[in-house]
């Protein structure tokens, strides 16, 4: 990768690419955005359709607890994936299982998990400060490009390909199940399988995105791109393309803002995606007014 970064740096020095690309960490960040946009854009339009925004928020909180748990168990500070994925997986399975078997409304049950994981995470973070400076775990909470490594990029790419292949395989059943579980069931889909399947894909996507976006803000990128695209989309194709484009623009824009103004990447990305959402909302209102 060093030769690749040197080549990109050379292009930036000759003015072919923006000058920011002289720095390998920025090139790496841009590549991460290129991979993240289709993953989160693709996942996000199903998250919104399947009404799993709150579920995603709870998973983001669970990731904080997972990171704290992983670090306390001795994982390296720059790659606490074991604790993060393990705890998020447990939380996902727990939430889906309880949601399927309890009679309470799903948002109430997810609220219980949300509170539980956050409370546990806070206790573990306090314990963690006895071993680490709390600023060292800031990158996991808010996202940071400085800490993203080539290994993170490779993991992101591998998970991105896996998620894309699995989503392509089950997309039609997932969408039909979102519209009407009985119709999906008649068409040969298994609603319980689909629910666990998609929750696991969402968990994977969230876990690999955390180092860039941050645990506290990752839910924004699995909800807002689709919400923005939905304001202007006219069919499932434009809905997917719109979600991916919005995720990419927000990622690239947030990256630029965070390097220029030295603010956390996650925060800048969320501000960018929110701005795009309100822009599309305005476009929707204008086109509706013109149509009347």
């Amino acid at each position, binding site marked *: 990768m060093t030769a690749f970064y040197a080549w990109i740096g050379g292009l930036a020095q000759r003015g072919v690419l923006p000058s920011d690309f002289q720095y390998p960490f920025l090139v790496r960040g841009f590549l991460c955005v290129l991979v993240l946009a289709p993953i989160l854009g693709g996942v996000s*339009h199903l998250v919104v*359709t399947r009404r799993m925004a709150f579920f995603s928020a709870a998973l983001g909180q669970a990731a904080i607890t997972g990171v704290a748990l992983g670090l306390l168990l001795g994982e390296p500070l720059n790659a606490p994936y074991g604790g993060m994925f393990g705890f998020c997986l447990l939380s996902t399975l727990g939430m889906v299982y309880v949601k399927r078997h309890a009679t309470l409304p799903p948002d109430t049950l997810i609220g219980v998990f949300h509170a539980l994981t956050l409370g546990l995470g806070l206790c573990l973070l306090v314990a963690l400060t006895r071993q680490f400076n709390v600023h060292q775990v800031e990158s996991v909470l808010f996202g940071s490009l400085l800490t993203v490594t080539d290994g993170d990029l490779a993991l992101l790419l591998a998970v991105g390909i896996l998620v894309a292949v699995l*989503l*392509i395989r089950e*997309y*039609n*059943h997932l*969408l*039909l199940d979102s*519209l*009407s579980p*009985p*119709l999906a*069931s*008649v*068409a040969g889909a298994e609603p319980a399988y689909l629910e666990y399947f998609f929750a696991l894909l969402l968990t994977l996507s969230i876990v690999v995105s955390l180092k860039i976006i941050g645990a506290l803000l990752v839910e924004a990128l699995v909800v807002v791109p689709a919400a923005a695209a*939905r304001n202007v*989309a*006219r*069919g*499932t*194709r*434009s*809905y*997917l393309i719109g979600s991916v484009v919005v995720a990419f623009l927000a990622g690239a824009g947030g990256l630029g803002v965070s390097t220029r103004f030295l603010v956390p990447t996650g925060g800048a990305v969320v501000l960018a995606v929110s701005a795009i959402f309100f822009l599309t909302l305005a476009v929707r209102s204008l086109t509706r007014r013109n149509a009347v």
Partner: protein
Amino acid sequence: MTEPAEAPALLEIDRLTVRRHREALLDEVSLRVRRGTVHVLMGPNGAGKSTLIAAILAQLAFDGRIAMNWAETGAIGYVPQSFAVDPTLPVTVADFLALTRQRRPVCLGITRGAKAAIARLLARVGLSGLERRPLAVLSGGELRRVLLAHALDPEPELLILDEPTAGLDDAAVAILDEILLASKRSGKTTVLMVSHDLEQVRRVADWVTVLDRRVAVEGPVDILATAHVRELLPAARERRAARA
């Protein structure tokens, strides 16, 4: 054509019981749906008609036995009683119909073969040219016809319709009648339908089962003329009085 009572049964239900909170929604219901017939379930609200459909579709737990004696594809088509569409969901009619028509994810585009099949399906239910219209802006009657088109693809061996005439105008009911009668003529599709529409039932049904949590009465469509059966259908009676 074979008389309904003598034809072999496609669907056999024996002593089906469904309980919720200890209350029996269906109590020891037994019936047979003969192959190639239109079998109508009638009864007052709360009689268990939709519950029976849900049990047949394995969407709820039950005691008893449900057996399907498939002779061909074993495909089931289903038009549910309710289908709530999120008003901001950007799913078009063509997207929806392509979901079960092609393997390629519909968000990556609809295949040429699927487009042609969708156009034929929409023509069959009298909705030609509606492919690009979002589901959310369809009228109630149009949505039910799109659901009917969905249920007809692939050609089902068992077509289950839960109050299919709700929200349909006379022209749409005539199209539905034609589809049901054509199914009967072909002998390939068996229809199980929940209906409160006595007139339509008289036009298309071969066999009627009146439910009131258990089988109250069943027989050929002529039984609807009897005073005893009319007494069991208060909803239908009210509807007819209101129309008059």
